[in-house]
């Protein structure tokens, strides 16, 4: 290791001290964040992590003074390069924001003007701020877009924001932020809305830019895996306070605060499965700012709580290893000796792993959406009919009591597959049988009995619940409709289900808006179970939720599965969650299942090249884990005109393993290769070659 030449003490680019932000509300004010202190040096990425509602974004907004009309900084100081930002006039701040501080938000469309061409928006930064000529500005924009690995930058400049994908939009926003060479870049969940493959590429990019431009980065994320990959130092926020601040290595290897330890216990480690490990959700939830406990803010949820914690608010103090922690008992707490508290019910490993009878059999299932052309020929019906081939030749079997996990990038047909099975879409070909009954037809052809046996849990519980019906009524409806429960016992049955999803009787009369996101999803699960279905289809049921809620819900689903013997089809984009939850995993690409088999087989060689790339991209919450770096170029091609031969050939990083540069991949549809134990891979590359590839992820002990 080469030490840099001795330098004098460097001032941090951003120094936040004892910051408190308050929002004025009717009848007083609430302090959204309190006593937050941290600093970011040049060329450093400081991560801020925590559940939603903990004040991460508020901290970022305070730095740039975007707190809104009713928010203000109540105490503390924010120094940018030694200059106090608080109390600066609007004009001075505007100049600083334009010239030296840039922000990137979760949703790139927030920062892009939908009615302007991307080129005009980007060039504006240079022509207005720097007065460079139009031609020179174009040249530099192309250069910067090239820098963020945008394919065909010159053409992108002529497009409108809606004409490029979400990942590309985010790259444009990052390029725009960097055009002005800011000293401080604030990124608020910049990759949360992106696919894991795109996320990996954007994270690589951020790391590279930090190195080359010496920019200080404040990186906000709820995803510990992303934090582990990109940050040097991390601050953990809880209920408006910074509870722990440490280097990323220390934080993951030796978390000091009980909350940090809890967060890490919530996460399924990649490679862990439900039989071998348990997720421990943190009980309770983040208190609202108006109702924080008097002592330690975490005390109501802490397993180590003592009398002192309830009375005295701990200060952020430094431990001998350099970590800052806000806990009275950090030294005495030994996370290795932790035992789950009594109210966390442990799920016994599934008894008798023998798969039951096949419950769902799908053979060559297809779903094509007809595409309406706009020419006159199309209108009168003479044009060639074109289709979006959303689902092509899906075949698999799900056995009773098992879980099939489905993974893939967005636009790969995961949701189409589930919708076709449940009957929201009719299929265009192939065979699908549920308990021996054909389910390829339209939903209206199905009898009530069949509908009752197939239920679904949706990603967004808000969109699937009637906002004006009470929770109790929503759960009771399927029971009434299907007549599964005698009329007189419905209320008792609803209460039993509420209890099963760990909601008390007091939830019976609540309306959806009175519930948190996690609670709504619990109601969604209870409603899906109300008709006692044999098969539950879950479409990203936990991806919109915080990790501790996610852990609780996964446990709940497992428990329900144990108790009722329910079979599940589980879609998720988080590969660790799928690995943890599923017995069988299917990897989908562009409407096709390309890799299917037992969960443990999918995550070890031989891999399908696409699975390999997905595994390489998944952020692992362990900075010590080594991942081989495989990045896919471009985005998923259009399903209107999918690539010939193997659909993955346009992006496949492993084609070179085949003779003649993989010409065969373009010409012929690959064969299914049986890797044993029911693991099948759709690829031209021989299994022996795929087996020889090293594992993507190696976790050092």
């Amino acid at each position, binding site marked *: 290791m080469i030490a840099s*030449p001795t330098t004098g*003490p460097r001032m941090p680019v951003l120094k936040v001290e004892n910051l408190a932000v308050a929002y004025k509300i009717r009848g007083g004010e609430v302090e959204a964040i309190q006593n937050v202190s941290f600093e970011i040096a040049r060329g450093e990425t400081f991560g801020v992590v925590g559940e939603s509602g903990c004040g991460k974004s508020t901290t970022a907004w305070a730095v740039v003074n975007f707190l809104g009309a009713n928010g203000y900084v109540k105490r503390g100081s924010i120094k940018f390069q030694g200059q106090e930002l608080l109390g600066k006039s609007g004009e001075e701040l505007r100049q600083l924001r334009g*010239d030296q501080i840039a922000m990137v938000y979760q949703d790139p469309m927030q920062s892009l003007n939908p009615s302007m061409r991307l080129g005009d928006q980007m060039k504006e930064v240079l022509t207005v701020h*720097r007065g460079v000529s139009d031609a020179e500005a174009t040249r530099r924009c192309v250069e910067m877009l090239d820098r963020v690995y945008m394919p065909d930058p010159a053409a992108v400049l002529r497009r409108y924001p809606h004409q490029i994908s979400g990942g590309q939009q985010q790259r444009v926003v990052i390029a725009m932020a960097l055009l002005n060479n800011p000293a401080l870049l604030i990124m608020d969940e910049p990759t949360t809305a992106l696919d894991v493959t795109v996320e990996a590429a954007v994270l690589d990019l951020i790391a590279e830019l930090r190195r080359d431009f*010496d920019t200080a980065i404040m990186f906000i994320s709820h995803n510990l895996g992303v934090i582990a990959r990109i940050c040097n130092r991390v601050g953990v926020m809880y209920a408006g306070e910074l509870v722990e601040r440490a280097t990323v290595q220390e934080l993951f290897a030796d978390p000091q605060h009980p909350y940090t330890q809890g967060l890490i216990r919530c996460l399924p480690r990649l490679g862990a499965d439900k039989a071998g490990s348990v997720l421990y959700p943190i009980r309770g939830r983040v208190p609202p700012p108006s109702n924080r406990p008097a002592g330690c803010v975490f005390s109501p949820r802490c397993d180590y709580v003592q009398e002192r914690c309830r009375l005295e608010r701990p200060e952020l103090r430094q431990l001998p290893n350099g970590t800052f922690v806000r806990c009275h008992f950090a030294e005495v707490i030994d996370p290795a000796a932790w035992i789950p508290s009594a109210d966390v019910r442990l799920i016994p490993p599934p008894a008798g792993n023998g798969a039951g009878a096949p419950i769902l059999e799908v053979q060559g299932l297809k779903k094509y959406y007809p595409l309406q052309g706009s020419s006159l020929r199309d209108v009168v019906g003479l044009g060639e009919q074109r289709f979006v081939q959303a689902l092509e030749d899906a075949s698999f079997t799900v056995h009773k009591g098992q879980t099939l996990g489905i993974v893939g990038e967005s636009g790969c047909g995961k949701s189409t597959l589930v919708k076709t099975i449940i009957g929201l879409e009719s299929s265009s070909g192939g065979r699908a049988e549920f308990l021996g009954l054909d389910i390829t037809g339209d939903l209206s052809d199905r009898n009530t009995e069949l509908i009752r046996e197939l239920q679904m849990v949706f990603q967004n519980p808000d969109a699937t619940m009637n906002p004006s019906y009470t929770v109790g009524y929503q759960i009771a409806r399927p029971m009434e409709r299907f007549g599964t429960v005698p009329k007189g016992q419905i209320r008792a049955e609803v209460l039993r289900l509420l209890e099963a999803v760990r909601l008390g009787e007091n939830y019976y009369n609540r309306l959806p808006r009175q519930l948190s996101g996690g609670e709504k999803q619990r109601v969604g699960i209870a409603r899906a179970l109300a008709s006692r279905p044999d098969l539950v289809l879950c479409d990203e049921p936990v991806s919109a939720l915080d990790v501790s809620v996610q852990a609780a819900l996964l446990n709940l689903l497992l428990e329900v599965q144990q108790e009722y013997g329910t079979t599940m089809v589980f879609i998720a984009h988080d590969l660790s969650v799928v690995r943890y939850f599923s017995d069988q995993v299917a990897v989908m690409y562009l409407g096709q299942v390309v890799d299917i088999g037992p969960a443990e087989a999918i995550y070890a060689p031989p891999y399908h090249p696409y699975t390999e790339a997905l595994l390489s991209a998944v952020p692992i919450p362990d900075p010590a884990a080594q991942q081989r770096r495989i990045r896919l170029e471009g985005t998923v091609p259009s399903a209107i005109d999918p690539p010939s031969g193997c659909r993955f050939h346009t992006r496949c990083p492993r084609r070179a393993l085949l003779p003649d540069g993989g010409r065969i991949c373009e010409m012929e549809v690959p064969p299914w290769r049986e890797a044993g134990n029911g693991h099948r891979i759709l690829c031209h590359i021989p299994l022996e070659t795929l087996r020889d590839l090293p594992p993507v992820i190696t976790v050092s002990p």
Partner: protein
Amino acid sequence: MLVKDCMTRHPVMAPPTMLAAEAQHLMHENQIRHLPVVGDGKRLLGLVNQLSFALDPGALASLDVWEITRHLSRLSVSDVMIPADKIETIAPDRTIERAARHMTDHKISCLPVVEDDDVVVGILTEVDLLHAFQLMLGLPSDGVRVTMRMPNRPGEFARLTAVLGRQQWGVMGIGTFPTPRREGFYDAVIKIRGVDSAEARAVLSQVPDQEIVDIRDVV
């Protein structure tokens, strides 16, 4: 090495409206000696250094302590800065030796680094150049530092590198210059990794026509 590789990026900068007293505090806080003054779009308007705060004793002599205070409290950065037209600047893609020449020619201790005529992207000070100097001679890492004296003719240096190559020794830093007060000779300072001085002396003393002027482990 170019200016952009050795400059300090994102220097601390001040707007022209900042009070001189505040600028003085800012420089003290950040432990810097030069403060570029910039307007909208980081355009260079001037430069404040420590001399900017030296007040003319003659001008103050006639004032009493209250008047001095009043005078100082009104003084802004734009009153004390060196205006932009009197500042030497440099572009980020120039070489550092050219930057050093620029600084010695004008006897100045810093150069604001500008793009697009006057947009400040960094600052290059004497300290940055001294860092670069240390890096070039391989100071940060351990090794043997040898000064070889060789006749000023083509091919001499190649002989030295051939010997290093045969030994598979890594060189972390190198600098050559005409030998002071001896016409026709060059001195080359090289820093070699992973050997001790006795070993290095034994090997390098075999190079014909060349002489070890100095050799040391501890720099």
